[in-house]
């Protein structure tokens, strides 16, 4: 019970931090608040028994903070906010909220095992599990990853042996996004800027 209460408190902390990041007038305060949200997420990863994610989330958060602060140092204060079309925003949010709740409930809700599983009891489907659960792969990965792949870390075995094709796709996505950043930062080949 203690872990669930801690996770709930940390999610409330993340929510309040996101509210501060969204509504603050000073851009530097928003960036620092989103940094706190990221570190809260890393602690949640540690509580939910995902140590690889916690390590990666902390360092990614630090680098993202450095990038965002470098962006914010050009201009700090936010320009005055004339209110947008409140009706349109309200309709968009209502539609999105209804869609999310409908997906949550219509695939079985929380109590039955067909949709979103009860928090704390995952649907670890193997090829041999019964009681109406459709066959899956997670239990097989857990049972056979050490002898088949030789890696004690089951997450690494899944990422780099059973699901290595997805890792190739992920390396491609990172490559393309970094290429895009390089291409936007070049000075060679740009047309001369007309003086404004």
């Amino acid at each position, binding site marked *: 019970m203690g872990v669930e209460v801690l996770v709930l408190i940390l999610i409330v902390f993340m929510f309040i931090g996101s509210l501060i990041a969204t509504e603050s007038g000073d851009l530097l305060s928003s960036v620092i608040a989103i940094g706190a949200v990221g570190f809260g997420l890393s602690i949640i990863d540690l509580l939910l028994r995902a*140590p*690889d994610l*916690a*390590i*990666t989330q902390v*360092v*990614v958060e*630090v*680098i993202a903070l*450095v*990038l965002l602060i*470098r962006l914010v140092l050009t201009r700090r204060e936010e320009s005055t906010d004339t209110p947008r079309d409140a009706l349109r925003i309200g309709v968009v949010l209502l539609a999105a909220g209804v869609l999310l709740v409908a997906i949550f409930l219509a695939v079985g809700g929380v109590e039955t095992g067909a949709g979103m599983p009860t928090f704390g009891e995952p649907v670890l489907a193997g090829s041999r599990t019964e009681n109406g659960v459709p066959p899956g792969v997670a239990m097989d990965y857990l049972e056979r990853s*050490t*002898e*088949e*792949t*030789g*890696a*004690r*870390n089951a*997450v*690494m*075995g899944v*990422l*780099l*042996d059973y699901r*290595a*094709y997805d*890792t*190739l796709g992920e*390396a*491609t996505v*990172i*490559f393309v996004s*970094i290429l895009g*950043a*390089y291409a936007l*930062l070049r*000075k060679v080949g740009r047309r001369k800027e007309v003086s404004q």
Partner: protein
Amino acid sequence: MMKKTGMTLIVKNVAKLVTAFIAVFGIYIALTGHLAPGGGFAGGVILAAAAVLMVLAFGSGASRKLVKESQCHTWDAAGALGFLAIALCGYIGGSFFLNFLAPGDAGTLVSGGWIPLSNLAILVKVGAGLAGVFLALSAFRLSRSEE
């Protein structure tokens, strides 16, 4: 931006001592990814964080003399090609991406087929890519403030 490059003397001396440790720590986490938490992605991002520390402490001009941006491009592409080469070598075993090296005894460093090699390729790719983007971004600010 600031007129003198980099930060104060204390920050520069501490950064000189600590950057090498951070880089070695990143490589360690990537190489022992199959035994302990971590892996190639965490190690690559930690290596990029060492490069970010160097750029922040010494200023972008001095850092670009030390690590040229073309080197980062080369290592980035080499990491991606290395990962693809490991995947194509799976044809030795029979099909694309088949783990053709022996699993070995679980728990030792040399185990898990080509998982340590893949972790190394991903470390090089992610680390060099993110370090290169940060170098280019800091240099861009520098040349813009000169206009």
